[in-house]
């Protein structure tokens, strides 16, 4: 492969990928062409995901820098409004990085790349190639990695359930806060629901393998209980059943972070002669799988995610990987911020929900009847934003979950197909275990 100049922003790097790819000596012409196409498609598809991000960066910056929630909500509503898209005649506005819609695009991208990968790897190939280097080593490794990806899929499915649970709590608050006239009882009701929501977020994010944390939790709820002014009752038994957690779905020792770490361990870019042969698409697909799983884990609550940011790195000198590297850098930065702040996940809607919930809890704590006009406007903005987030979740989480399941199915199916090819080879020599 020609040496690539990796200086400058990743956007510059993307333009490089459009240049020619290195000739592949070990394959025939058709294969070489397919391989090149595959690399180009991977780069293009992920560039689209990155482009989405780069165009919306400005909006995101305004959003996070200003504490004016009404403008954020307003911005969100304008981008969402169907009339806006009709007027511009262009494609629908690209979704915000790490939003539910973005993840749906990401999973679509995954499914496309995966289908093409399988075509490159399996179609019309002599099975015996799977028993020769480098595939004899890479394929079992790939299969092992896909098993780990299945567990991530399950964890994410469960995480989405939890987000849906939070969404329902937020909806309680919404319903309470939309009452007119707004009385203390309804504010308290909203505060209670949001406190449960925030407690559950903290609980699940902080949860890890050590067991001392139940104590920490009760402590936290108690303090929340006080803030609510006893609305939930400070009887421990009465609040214990109030929240839900991820903890029971997998063994206590299971760690999403470790899982990602294991997946990206021994993921090495092919070198020398291998870098042009079949090792390359396998490596590309491995990278995509790890990236997608890594991004999902970062965004959606999963058990134990310490040190996630450092657990996945892509070598910087690969053409096709530039958009992935760009995304990885951006998400990695966000994750580091998250680790400091302690948010439940990088899912855009979730981060906003968390922020709005905090603001609303603050509002509930200082609520006095009747409200000042300014306060009322502030509340209306918060409620509008929460409503908008809930709507996005309501519409997006179900399909997202289905898509995760589809990814699961796809991984299972591909694995079975690859194993079939492997079996064709091993059958020739495998003894019957009588």
């Amino acid at each position, binding site marked *: 492969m020609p040496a690539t100049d990796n200086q400058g922003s990743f956007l510059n790097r993307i333009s490089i990928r459009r240049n020619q790819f290195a000739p592949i000596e070990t394959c025939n012409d058709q294969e070489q062409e397919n391989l090149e196409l595959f690399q180009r498609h991977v780069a293009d598809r992920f560039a689209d995901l990155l482009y989405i991000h780069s165009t919306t960066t400005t909006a995101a910056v305004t959003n996070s820098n200003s504490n004016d929630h009404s403008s954020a909500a307003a911005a969100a509503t304008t981008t969402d409004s169907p009339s806006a898209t009709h007027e511009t005649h262009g494609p629908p506005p690209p979704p915000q990085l790490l939003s539910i819609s973005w993840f749906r695009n990401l999973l679509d991208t995954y499914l496309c790349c995966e289908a093409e990968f399988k075509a490159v790897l399996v179609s019309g190939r002599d099975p015996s190639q799977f028993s020769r280097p480098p595939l004899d080593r890479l394929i079992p490794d790939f299969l092992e990695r896909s098993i780990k990806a299945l567990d991530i899929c399950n964890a994410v499915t469960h995480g989405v359930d939890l987000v849906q*649970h939070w969404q*329902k709590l937020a909806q309680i608050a919404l*319903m309470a806060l939309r009452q007119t006239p707004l009385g203390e009882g309804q504010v308290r009701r909203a505060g209670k629901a949001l406190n449960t929501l925030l407690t559950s977020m903290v609980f699940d994010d902080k949860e890890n393998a050590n067991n001392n944390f139940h104590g920490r939790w009760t402590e936290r709820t108690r303090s929340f209980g006080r803030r609510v002014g006893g609305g939930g*009752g400070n009887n421990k038994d009465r609040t214990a*059943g109030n929240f839900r957690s991820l903890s*029971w779905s997998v*063994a206590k020792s299971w760690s999403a972070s470790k899982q990602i770490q294991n997946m990206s361990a021994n993921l090495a870019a092919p070198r020398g002669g291998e870098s042009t042969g079949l090792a390359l698409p396998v490596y590309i697909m491995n990278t995509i799988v790890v990236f997608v799983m890594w991004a999902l884990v970062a965004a959606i609550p999963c058990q134990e995610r310490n040190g996630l940011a450092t657990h996945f790195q892509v070598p910087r000198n690969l053409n096709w990987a530039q958009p992935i590297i760009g995304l990885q850098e951006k998400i990695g930065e966000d994750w580091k911020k998250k680790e400091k702040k302690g948010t439940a996940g990088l899912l855009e809607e979730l981060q906003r929900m968390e922020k709005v919930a905090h603001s609303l809890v603050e509002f509930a704590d200082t609520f006095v009847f009747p409200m000042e006009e300014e306060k009322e406007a502030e509340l209306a903005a918060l409620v509008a934003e929460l409503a908008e987030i809930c709507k996005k979740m309501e519409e997006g989480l179900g399909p997202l979950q289905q898509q995760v399941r589809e990814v699961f199915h796809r991984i299972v199916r591909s694995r079975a197909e690859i194993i079939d090819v492997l079996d064709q080879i091993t059958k020739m020599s495998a*003894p019957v275990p009588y």
Partner: protein
Amino acid sequence: MEPPESTAAEKVILQWDSTASEDARERMIFTGDRQEIERYLDAVDELQKAMSSASLSDSSSTTTSALQIAMARLEDEFRNILLSHTSPVEDEWLTESTQLEFASQEFELKEEIAESSSDKQFEHQESNSSSCYKTTSSIREVDLIPSDAVYDLRCIAERMIAAGYLRECIQVYASVRKSAVDASLKKLNVEKLSIGDIQRLEWETLETKIRRWIRAAKICVRVLFASERRLCEEIFEGLGNSADDACFMETIKSPAIQLFNFAEAISISRRSPEKLFKILDLHDALSDLMPDIESVFESKSSESIRVQAVEILSRLAEAARGILSEFENAVLREPSKVPVPGGTIHPLTRYVMNYISLISDYKQTLIELIVSKPSTGSRYSSDPNVPDMDLSEFEGQTSTLALHLIWIIAILQFNLDGKSKHYKDASLAHLFMMNNVHYIVQKIKGSAELREMIGDDYLRKLTGKFRLAATNYQRSTWVRVLHCLRDEGLHVSGSFSSGVSKSALRERFKAFNAMFEEVHRTQATWLIPDTQLREELRISISEKVIPAYRSFLGRFRSHIESGRHPENYIKYSVEDLENAVLDFFEGYPVSQHLRRRSDILIETRYDMLMADLISRGQTSVLTVQSSLRLFPNASTL
């Protein structure tokens, strides 16, 4: 400002405002006096009536606020009732059902045998306790919460939903019930294993887990989930917004997914022949559960669970199909080349036939699952590594599964044929084929299911095949030996009275002795494990050798005895040979050379041998005598 008529109700509510007084915070209404409960509920009703009769702007803020206080209170009461009925009740019925299903060590030991019968016990168990209900033949609902508490819960739910607190109600309900269900799953040993964990476990370990899972899954679906569903209905049915359904799904979705995750992980594990039967067990169990799963998860919102169960079922079916074809391939390709000593039954034959017998035990399921015909030689007609066989003659009369079994037997023979070529001695190769095909026939005849599936036509072919192998054996060993006893070449031309060449005759006797000794020595170490087959082959040999020798001896004895050292040429009497044949195919070397008339020691050994023979196989001796011959053609050598 305050309308005086609602003050009484409001007072009751405020009296129980847990934010207002320590006493109200510590005590619960629903654990106390019934009258107080009624008074509180009435007060809530009154507030709600006041709220609905007045228009929004009208309703006093104190009424609204009292109602909100009441709702917070009711939510706490609701949670408290639920919490106080989680563990103890569940304990009681879980152990009740587990006593039947698993538990004791003793059961663990007997479970292989007892499993199916205990399942039936479970299904047909009469509900002798008052807390058991049966909606379908297998679903057994129990009271998770006593009916008076259920009544209280419904009273509260009604009021909370009427006041617009449905979501809170669902949230509280699901949180509490979910941890109860989680505890039950733990009790049932439903482990939290990831797919990765399961792929790493040894298959033997997984077999135990599969057995356990099947029992747990039955209880989960038919008792646990079904009872949860009923509880939701009892509390929420008819209260609007399909609250019962929402509560059920919120409670059960994750536990159900956790439960099915195990079966899913098994269904995608790597395929190998030894996994077939446990996978079929799992498939059968899940397939049995399907009607119950469909009935328990019938609502639209629980569709995903139904879909997942169906997916797993079809994956298990796919796995079973994959394993069968894998097995066929393994049988075809099994590469061992070292000949089995003594030409006895090859371990592959035993393995394959035991496997096939087990397949026939699962025939009900497999007949449904195996729908495509085996990929026989026709597809690979150019491939010399696959037997060329036309299964079409069996197609009409039997199932696809049976075609596969016939095909497996065919490829087994094909493989064995290949292995037989590695014997240096052609006779031993024939004996090996005879032994193995005979074993195949015996195995088929030993199982009614297998015999029915394989069918008489193919069985007849197999029988023909081992008979042919026996004939081939006799031909390749004994034609040469009997050749010594022919008349041709002994008579000297021209003479008329004693026209026998003595030297030729002596050579013949010497050759015969040497050959017979050699055959005796080697073939005593050969083995026919089946006593009856062994007897019959020996008899068949005797029938050929003994009369030939007797007549040869009768015709030419005088010529030898008239010469010098007749004992060098006539070493054996007819009886000696008869006895010697009894050493054949016993599988161990004869300790001494062929017995002679004079050898008393050997006579004793012969007696012992006879005694041994009779004690071992009296019946077989009898059957031999009753002329049920396996080799009717053998005499046409």
